[in-house]
């Protein structure tokens, strides 16, 4: 009964999300926020691989997001490549940087690795700010083309009167495109979690020494995880570039990394489905605070005060997030608890 209710609710939410942009009372601003939520959903799912699956703290995720965004932006402006070509290229570039950064540093444990990723993302921002010949620096990169679906070559072959050429204008098409992207990443994450790769990551997270004595090559699996995570971040960046049509180095500051980390922690480390909820909650909260704070005569940047506080309180009272991953959930299994008790008392 419980299960069917859950399923019904899930499909209802999905259907509502699909129909929503077509309704007459739909607000452009709300749609815009929802697209933003989708971008962060992808980012949060991608980040979850490193701290959630492998148990390594990544404080520089936004670096890959920025690399993806600028890759897409520059390729669009200088070469006019199609969005569908750019997505894999951005992912590839993200993954390359992931390997370059990960291969020498993933031998390190916990804190050192976190610091390296942090330094890397700061260097990315410095590069984007200072290499003006390439990125126009703090002025930003305006005039990136929107996403275009161009089948005119095919339509003119069939019938010269037809023109299958659509330019994405307004939030509706991006809403569906974003949804498609989230769905794809979701499916990929689900398949990875159940694969040999996913099980290797979990083993590393739970006990890396035990994992390596079972024949798991720690460095290889960690680098693969880091590269996949970077690639997903870069895809989100590429989407952002073609959606906002403007990029600036300020969009990729450290706070963004922290925000994404907040989403992952809120949803539960190691549970990528929770990341979706975490992203939705925090972005919605950010928008609400954006309205409330000026009313209280406070600068809008102070919404990070709330984020900081949420993180501290979460770690204090619910360190596993609102939706702990299944591995932790199974610890609550009555049979396991009974077994543990018996073993402990003997």
């Amino acid at each position, binding site marked *: 009964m419980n299960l069917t209710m859950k399923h019904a609710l899930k499909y209802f939410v999905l259907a509502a999300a699909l129909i929503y942009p077509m309704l007459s009372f739909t607000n452009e601003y709300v749609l815009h926020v929802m697209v933003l939520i989708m971008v962060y959903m992808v980012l949060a799912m991608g980040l979850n691989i490193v*701290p959630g699956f492998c*148990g390594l*703290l990544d*404080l520089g995720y936004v670096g890959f997001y920025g690399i993806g965004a600028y890759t897409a932006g520059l390729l669009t402006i200088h070469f006019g490549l199609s969005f569908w070509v750019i997505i894999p290229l951005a992912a590839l570039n993200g993954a390359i940087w992931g390997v370059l950064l990960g291969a*020498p*540093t993933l031998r*390190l*444990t*916990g*804190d*050192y690795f*976190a*610091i*390296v990723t*942090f*330094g*890397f993302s*700061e*260097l990315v921002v*410095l590069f984007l*700010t*200072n290499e003006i010949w390439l990125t126009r620096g703090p002025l930003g990169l305006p005039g990136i083309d929107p996403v275009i679906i161009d089948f005119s070559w095919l339509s003119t072959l069939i019938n010269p009167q037809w023109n299958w050429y659509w330019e994405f204008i307004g939030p509706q098409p991006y809403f569906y495109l974003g949804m498609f992207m989230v769905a794809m990443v979701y499916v990929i994450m689900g398949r990875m979690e159940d694969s040999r790769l996913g099980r290797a990551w979990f083993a590393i997270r739970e006990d890396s*020494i035990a994992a390596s004595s079972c024949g798991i090559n720690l460095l290889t699996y960690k680098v693969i995880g880091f590269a996949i995570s970077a690639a997903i971040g870069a895809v989100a960046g590429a989407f952002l570039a073609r959606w906002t049509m403007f990029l600036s180095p300020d969009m990729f500051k*450290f*706070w963004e990394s*922290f925000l994404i*980390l907040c989403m992952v*922690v809120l949803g539960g*480390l190691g549970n990528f489905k929770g990341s979706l909820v975490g992203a939705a909650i925090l972005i919605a909260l950010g928008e609400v605070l954006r309205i409330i704070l000026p009313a209280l005569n*406070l*600068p809008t*940047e*102070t919404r*990070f*005060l709330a*984020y*900081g*506080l*949420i*993180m*501290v309180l979460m*770690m*204090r009272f619910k*360190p596993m997030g609102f939706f702990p991953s299944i591995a932790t959930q199974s610890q609550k299994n009555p049979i396991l608890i009974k077994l543990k008790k018996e073993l402990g008392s003997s």
Partner: protein
Amino acid sequence: MFEQQLINGLTLGMIYALIAVGYTMVYGVIQLINFAHGEIFMLAAFLAVTFITVFGLPIYVVIILTMGCCALIGVLLDIFAYRPLRQSPRLAALITAIGMSIFLQNLAMIIWGSRPKPFVQSALPPFLRTTALTVGDASISWLQLFIFGIASLLMIILFLIINKTRVGTAMRALSQNRTSAALMGINVNRVISFTFALGSSMGAVAGIMVAIYYNTLYPTMGYVAGVKAFAAAVLGGIGSVPGAMIGGIVLGIAEALGAGYISSLYRDGIAYAVMIAVIIFRPSGILGKSTVEKV
């Protein structure tokens, strides 16, 4: 040119060293990167200006008072944010530290506004900006001498506290093995609080120095300075107090020379690059001991 850069770098390095000892001591004792340490440095600058403008206290009193306030903030930070998480995974404590850092930074933004402010010049003796002595082409201002003097004095005091007093011995014991230290009758929480107080008061002096030296203070100043000081601590070998001092000075000089001869645009980048290079090639730093993980 070279001498001048060297002297500027040395001044900067002294300040980094003062902040870095705070990171390294806390790391040594509880293995936590206290991200909020940079924020204490920032709060010190703002508190000092507030004490001067609101209460009109003389600068020397203000420095002592700010040290005390920041020590208190450090202790409260430990008690309310970190102490409940002593037994939880390191990740949780690290995320809490970042959360507290962001919280304090935005709190300062709400209280004092986000625009950069100048330091209250009238509170400073006017001779500070004049040249004290010249070496070759380089000139050293009284302010720079003052920073050298205070920083060196504090380092010596710190060295004596750690090596010659009972509480310093307790700190060293704690950094070797917390459980054994507790079994020897050391009050662990009190020693940790003392470590936070000591580190925070050093950071407080650095904060005031930077505000005077650059004549500006803003709520995000703790972020960059904190990261650089942390880089210094890593460079010197995290957990090692003399290492942090050396690391700070080396980093300050590297930064001044790098900005002067390579590119001033990548000034901040030098610290990150040094940090990443050290972590990749020699994670134990200049003076740190490499640890072997036992199964």
